[in-house]
């Protein structure tokens, strides 16, 4: 296990099970994430890794088991879901920026309407965040006018605007042209260095090796192997892990 940076886990999943109809997507998933930890989830497509992190902010509902985020258990209680979602930022593969709003409005929207910040405050924060992701000059443009990498960085800024404790990344670079991947990964590295708790689903092994505290391999809805990058890349134990690594490296 990686060294713990705090005593209590911020996310703890116990025996999580989920089905899509009759299809068993998640099978007894157990995972604990400590504050400020970066966990990278890898695995073949269809292995349930996206579904798993979408369960953490309740975009998907799990049917069995327990997910506790920052001390609150996910249940049908609407207030719990709202409280948890405001603690968790999420970045999607397809960016999902709001095309009818300017970049600045995209970032400032949630703080204004969910946190009820005055417009001026929210926009100032938004501008700072855009500076942090390196595109302050695009604030007045619409998402459709930006490149994919720029859009994904706006999406990161938008998620950060709610000052979340946890960031979820669902294949953030999969829809990007190769030369744009780096600019997004740089922002994510910088975010990891600042101490953000991150759960990242990705195929970027370089990023995983460099940034992750722990790597988790999903296959057929379950966790196959979990460990530090050194363990993973130099001394994998499970046959499935060895096969997976041999295919992508």
């Amino acid at each position: 296990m990686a060294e713990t940076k705090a005593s209590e886990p911020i996310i703890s999943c116990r025996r999580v099970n989920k089905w899509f109809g009759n299809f068993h997507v998640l099978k007894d998933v157990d995972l604990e994430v400590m504050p400020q930890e970066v966990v990278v989830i890898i695995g073949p497509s269809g292995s349930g890794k996206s579904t798993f992190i979408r369960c953490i902010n309740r975009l998907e509902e799990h049917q069995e088991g327990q997910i506790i985020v920052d001390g609150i258990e996910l249940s049908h209680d609407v207030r719990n879901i709202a409280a948890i979602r405001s603690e968790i930022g999420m970045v999607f593969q397809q960016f999902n920026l709001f095309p009818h709003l300017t970049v600045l409005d995209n970032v400032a929207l949630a703080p204004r309407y969910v946190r009820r910040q005055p417009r001026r405050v929210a926009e100032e924060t938004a501008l700072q965040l855009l500076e942090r992701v390196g595109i302050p000059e695009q604030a007045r443009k619409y998402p459709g006018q930006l490149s994919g990498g720029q859009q994904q960085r706006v999406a990161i800024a938008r998620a950060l605007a709610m000052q979340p404790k946890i960031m979820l990344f669902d294949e953030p670079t999969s829809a990007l042209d190769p030369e744009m991947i780096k600019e997004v990964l740089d922002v994510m590295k910088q975010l990891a260095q600042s101490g953000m708790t991150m759960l990242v689903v990705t195929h970027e092994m370089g990023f995983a090796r460099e940034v992750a505290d722990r790597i988790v391999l999903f296959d057929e809805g379950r966790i196959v192997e979990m460990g530090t990058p050194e363990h993973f890349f130099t001394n994998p134990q499970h046959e499935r892990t060895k096969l997976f690594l041999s295919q992508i490296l």
Partner: protein
Amino acid sequence: MRGRYTDSDFYVAPLESPPSRRPPITSVGPLGWLRANLFSSKVNSMATLVMGALIGWFLWSFLSWSVRSAQWGVIYHNLRLVTSGLYDRQEIWRMELVAGILVLLSGLGLGVWGRLSRGVFIAVLVILLILVIVPVLAARVPEPTIYVLVEPQRAPPDFVFVGLKGQEVSFTFDPLTDTQDADERLLGFVETQARTEWSIRAAEVRAGDLDLGQYNLTVSLRLLDRQGRPLTSQAGSGVGDFAGNPAGGTLHYTLPADGWYVLEVRRDDSANGSVGDNAGYAWIRVHGVETFASQEAAAQARVEQFGEPPAVERALFADENSYRFEGARSVAEFFSLQVTPLFKRIVMPCFVGALLFFNGWVIGTLGKRERAVRRAVLGGWILSAPVILIILRGFEGSRTLPLVPTSVWGGLLLTILLTVVGIVASFPLGVALALGRRSELPAIKWTCTLFIETVRGVPLITILFMAKQIVPFFWSALSGLDLAIRMMIGVTLFSAAYLAENVRGGLQIIPYGQIEAARALGLNPALTTTLIVLPQALRAVIPAIVGQFISLFKDTSLVAVVGLFELVGIVDRIVSGQAIYRPYQREAYIVIAIIYFVISYAMSDVSRRLEQSGAGSIRRL
């Protein structure tokens, strides 16, 4: 190919490059445009020529008819009815006040939120200028000739008119002795009775049984003032007297004072000998007398100024409809007789309106940056709806604002009211129904679907009849509701059902990722809908929504069927109810078609601008 060129084969360009020349005249400018667009190929040229000829022919026949013989008076003499229906005559100021409020608010709104383009500004100035200049120029066009007909077997009518001091008038006696001449001129005459009689007689004439030239028609003309005293003519025969024989002749008068005058027309049948009451046709052509829209208008218009007209048996007043020839109007007369009366009626309202609008625009532009001004304008718009309804309807028993029941509201007022209420009420209802139909709660979903499908499956006219007859029968509380308000409800429900389907189309194109992103940010469902989904969905279906509003606007004409006189209803009432306007249905319906077209076109133009504005022009989902 090697060895084809030798060392002596080379080309070097001169040091100076040749000067740039203009392209050939046939490839640029208007000529180039014509060639590229209208005559690019044989088929295109043929299509251009054929379609151009067709459109040209249509336009030419329409314009020539509307200038030379159409009687647009049916609209401009009934402007009050057309704009406000049977709204109480002495309460019309309330409509004017409401129009003023709306124009002022529009100016303020444009100043605060919009931009007045220079083109529009200049266009308005030009229109105002035309409104002033046309009547001034038209005043120099001589009054048209008035034809008083002397017919067989009928005592000739005396002709009554008002004149001003120093005005020169003349009367020409002109017997119709030539059959050909009489045929052409009498059949071109609008007054139907004379025309019918002549066509019967003309058959006898052509059969050789009657000879117009054989009649020895003797007529005496005298111009009398209000007191019945004869005036002296400057020319003609006799003193204030004229006895015309087949040769004809003219009397000239310079009127001595302002007031009523009577042209006394007497046919001396004793002088006609045996033919007696078979004496022929003759014109008395009257020059220099002001014409009026109708007999009534001629009398009414001058009563205030000159007192009651003299009591004369079989009096004729200078009525432009009764005395004209079809097809005989010149372009100048079109402007003086048809355009000027309309312009004189609308010039003051237009100027006041333009001034109000401009003032509003100036205030709005200056106050654009002040939050208080922006709020005041928005508040003004929101408040305007109830205020306008109160002003228009008034209160029972009130002295300053007596009740004007909605049953007498009509014309353009009712059409616009039905449209605006329909739009404002059906839009939120339609959006709510669309959201309801996509709801996850089956009770709401099924209710909305049932409503939408039921309403869409029934013709609007049925819904209007239901609103009128059936609903009050089942639900007695509604029987006290004004018919106009019941119609508003009917139109609103109908429009909402169609709108709901349009909006649903827009909702379906929003990718699910948008909703997920909003949820992941912590937005609750209500905020997700209002901030993320609806703005995108509605923008995507603006053309469909505005199309629905345009058909709502046109569909309001159906309330005529249940007994409300909106634009179409009131015009139908004018042309079928008032005998003198009965021949002018074409003119009346053309004008309302133009009104409908202009408003519909303006609406679709606004929709096009909305689509192109802001994020709409660069959106990419």
